[in-house]
């Protein structure tokens, strides 16, 4: 990883249904955001997905946050995007 790259984690949590990944990734693609890694599982009946995305060239994280939140609301899911460093700080020495 280059030091200049800014990365964020998109987390999607909620009731499993058809097309979650398609809808989230479509939105990200529309905003020209590259997905670096993706991991998905069903935890206690809950659909849980984490995506590592490159936001180096993203000017406006806030509007993306809003778009994701709205998409989440329409699907009954919680979708968040936050900078990767917070996970780094909390879970790596």
């Amino acid at each position, binding site marked *: 990883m280059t030091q200049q790259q800014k990365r964020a*984690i998109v*987390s999607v*949590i909620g009731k499993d249904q058809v097309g979650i990944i398609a809808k989230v990734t479509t939105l990200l693609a529309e905003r020209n955001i590259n997905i670096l*890694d993706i*991991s998905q*599982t069903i*935890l206690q009946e809950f659909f*849980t997905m*984490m995506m*590592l995305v490159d936001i180096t060239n993203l000017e406006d*994280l*806030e509007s993306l*946050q809003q778009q994701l939140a709205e998409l989440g609301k329409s699907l009954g899911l*919680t979708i*968040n*995007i*936050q*900078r*990767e*460093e*917070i*996970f*780094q*700080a*909390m*879970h*790596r020495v």
Partner: protein
Amino acid sequence: MNFAMTEMLETIRMVQMENLDIRTITMGINLRDCADSNFEKMKQKVYDKITAYAKDLKAVAEKTEKEYGIPIINKRISVTPIAEILGTASKEQAVELAKTLDEAAKTLGIDFLGGFSALVHKGISKGEQTLLDALPEALSSTERVCGSVSVGSTKAGINMDAVRQMGEIIKKAAELTKDQNGLACAKLVVFCNPVEDNPFMAGAFHGTGEGEAVINVGVSGPGVVLNALKRYPDADLGEVAEIIKKTAFKITRAGELIGRVVAERLNVPFGIMDLSLAPTNAMNDSVAEILEEIGVERVGTHGTIAALALMNDAVKKGGAMASSYVGGLSGAFIPVSEDNGMIRGITDNALTLSKLEAMTCVCSVGLDMIAITGDASAATISAIIADEAAIGMINNKTTAVRIIPVPGKKEGDMVEFGGLLGRAPVIGVNPYSSEKIIQRGGRIPAPLQALTN
């Protein structure tokens, strides 16, 4: 991916379900260069400097919290102890300056500004006496200004003349705000061994050893620690300490990261992380409930102090490893009115004033946000302060008293302070008089502990 799913979920759960947040980002601002023999000029300089330095504090903090997904609850400011710049100003002018500080806080949209303070642990200078005289009116005629007074230290002993005055000041401040249950007293802390870089209110001020401006950070995470412990109901106490330590480490790292980002974006040096666990009135965000989870049925019963000592120490051990610069108070905060578990302890008669005093011996801070009966005399309040100061002086630690003698209220009544300050059950004080020890005045000499050189 660099992280396991469980790790990422843990962070998200801590924020969304367990109230992990940055309790406060506090910008310390030096006001010494605002001193001026012309009071009007000084007032303008103070206002201009604060509003210029902290212009972007709120906006930057709000942007950062969104980006990193960790809420920053309060943005605050601490300033040079105002007594140090008062010079020959009159009491009325000191009150006016408090109003100027209040206005600056409102302009910036921050909830509290601390530093209407005086350090009088050995003697009282002219400016400091002016500030003490102005305190009741200053705190009752402003909304967001917080004050603090240092009346003792391990190195200097306890200034009992200042302690006597503080009893009277607190009574007067309560009387002036009797319509709001003595709210002015909730913004006034009496210290022994205060620290210069405390980010938490009401006791924050920007000490003399500090630079031009600084960012200090306090995190909050009782809910996170409580939930971590709940997952291990059968752990022995060594394991309990380990769980608290690990949790404190994670909480502190999050705080340190956010603090550093905010400091960098504001182009102000990062000062310290305060490792205190600060409760809120939110469900399950209580320090007392952690003690109850460790194994006392109600906070205040036998075993409480052992549990508190274990918890406080484990938080420090975890936090000290997580942050490069630890400072502030870094102890357990157990403000009664802001912690649902503490409130319940008192209403269920498990927790008393004497037990609260004893708890101070093993954690920092002291008697915080305690409502007592309105008929408690000034001398009794002074004596309560003297007791706490003595604990701090002898044990080389910070202790503080933030006590509210609620006018017209009796033991058992419940009073509301509103907002973050919460609500508190009124507790009774010892009916016997402490008048004589307070009237004697003078200074309690510095203890042997001071002779360390």
